[in-house]
């Protein structure tokens, strides 16, 4: 039963990717042929176009930047939430749920009007800021969990032995938190890289990301190009994620448990 289930799951996950690959290289696939009638590299060639490559690279740049900044913002925030008492801590928890539980369309329309007023609409800055707002709850939650399980006792020992607060943190706690930092950055990258509607609204079509190249093909029904771009999309996301994962595994044996994300 378990084996059958596993095979079914593997098929449900891997078959779609195989289908993408097949569609990406088909030239003619008329109804009702179960397999493509002839193959072509036109889809792959479209991907190698200089504009497309440029968009892919800048898109990876925006997403990595947003993810890194989110982790950097989340690190002190998670520490404050884990180890300090302050007024408004409970309200903070509720507000941090907002980007996940507020209907995203309402959230994005609100941001669009605000960013228009702030003059950062249609700019890369605005897009990255919006992406950070969507990503942020994930690193904060994960790092809170992690900090609570690492605790502060070892850091306090370093302090009694004469280390400055900053040194105690960077030499004792930080190495223990680093794997979690890398894995939430990877997750943040995936979240940002997959955004379409948010980037369209805040970037106004002026800030191009890879997701925005894919959707017009899907809408116009060009399956070969949709598939080629979708495949490249997964490949790019997987490569960046895989590199981070490999770094993580090289430097620490175990992978920290992270929650998945929906977006």
């Amino acid at each position, binding site marked *: 039963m378990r084996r059958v*289930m*596993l095979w079914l*799951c*593997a098929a*449900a*996950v*891997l078959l*779609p990717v195989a*289908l*993408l690959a097949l569609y990406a290289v088909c030239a003619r696939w008329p*109804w*009702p*042929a*179960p397999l493509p009638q002839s193959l072509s590299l036109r889809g792959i060639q479209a991907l190698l176009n200089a504009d497309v490559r440029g968009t892919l690279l800048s898109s990876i740049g925006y997403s990595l930047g947003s993810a890194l900044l989110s982790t950097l913002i989340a690190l002190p*925030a998670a*520490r*404050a939430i884990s180890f*300090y008492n*302050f007024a408004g801590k409970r309200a*903070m*928890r*509720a*507000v941090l*749920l*907002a980007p*996940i*539980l*507020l*209907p*995203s*369309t*309402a959230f994005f*329309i*609100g*941001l669009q*009007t*605000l960013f228009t007023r702030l003059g950062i609409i249609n700019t890369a800055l605005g897009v990255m*800021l919006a992406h*950070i*707002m969507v990503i*942020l709850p994930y690193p*904060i939650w994960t790092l809170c969990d992690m900090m609570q399980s690492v605790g502060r006792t070892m850091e306090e020992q370093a302090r009694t032995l004469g280390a400055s607060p900053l040194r105690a943190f960077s030499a004792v706690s930080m190495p223990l938190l680093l794997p979690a930092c890398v894995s939430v950055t990877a997750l943040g990258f995936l979240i940002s890289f*997959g955004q*379409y*509607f948010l980037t369209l609204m805040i970037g106004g079509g002026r800030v191009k990301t890879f*997701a925005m190249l894919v*959707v017009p093909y*899907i*809408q116009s029904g060009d*399956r070969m190009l*949709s*598939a080629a771009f979708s495949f490249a999309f*997964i490949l790019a*996301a997987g490569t960046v*994620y895989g590199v981070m994962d490999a770094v993580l595994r090289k430097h620490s044996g175990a992978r920290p*448990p992270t*929650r*998945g994300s*929906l*977006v």
Partner: protein
Amino acid sequence: MKRAAPYIMLLPVFILVCMLLVSLADSVLQSLGYFPAAGLTSFTFAYYKEVLGSLALRDSLLYSLYLSLVSALLSVALGVALSALLHASARAEALVYRLPIAMPHIVVAFLVIALLSQTGLLARLAYALGLIGEPGAFPLLTQDKAGAGVIAAYVFKQAPYVMSVVVLLMRRVSSTCGEAARVLGASPRKAFFYVTLPLCMPAVSTAFIIVFAYSFGAYELPFLLGATLPRAFPVQAYTEFLSPSLLHRPYAMVYNALMLLFGVIFIALYLVAFKRLMRYNKAVYA
């Protein structure tokens, strides 16, 4: 200085939270008719009255509630079933949920079209088996009123997510309480349905709320895969927002404010569910 420390550490988060709150307040003000940019400065419930009485609102709201309810129920059922069958092996679970979580919604939308549309792979399979003779004979599963395509896409994305939330707790519960039930003579089925699953319910309910809230508010999938009419609530809201006349903006913001109201309800429900989860977690750890 000591008392200021947490506030300094949270400063960037505070700034972002303020931006969020200001933008939400702005939506609500505009829905009440306060929109100086269009020369509207008096507060009124007129827009609410008009939108709340409209068929477009009723239809889109019901359609969206239907889509999110069905996809959330199916995702949770499948996610729990997958955790139940696979929680024993960490490798197996990683295989199942890594890839779908890495796949963006727009790619999933394309996959659904390629598989389920009337010229998609399933239709071709049906033709090869002699079940249908032409594409039109295959049931309409994308851009259909029943939203089969949207639901399929959400389940593909969300079931693995539900699994990722539930599986950690389930592994702990079944190796402790579930195991105890087995030792005391319960059949595997009884141990699961009477002990393990009930103890995992808090995690299941938080996952349900998150999944439901997501599909209720997201634009991409109903936009790419949903029916033209009725429109899903987010699609309807954005269509109103795109109206070129600024005087129309308050109507769009009524939609937005209603979505926010739902969001507040989701957050309240989540906090209640999460509190229970924490209590259970402590009990299971102890």
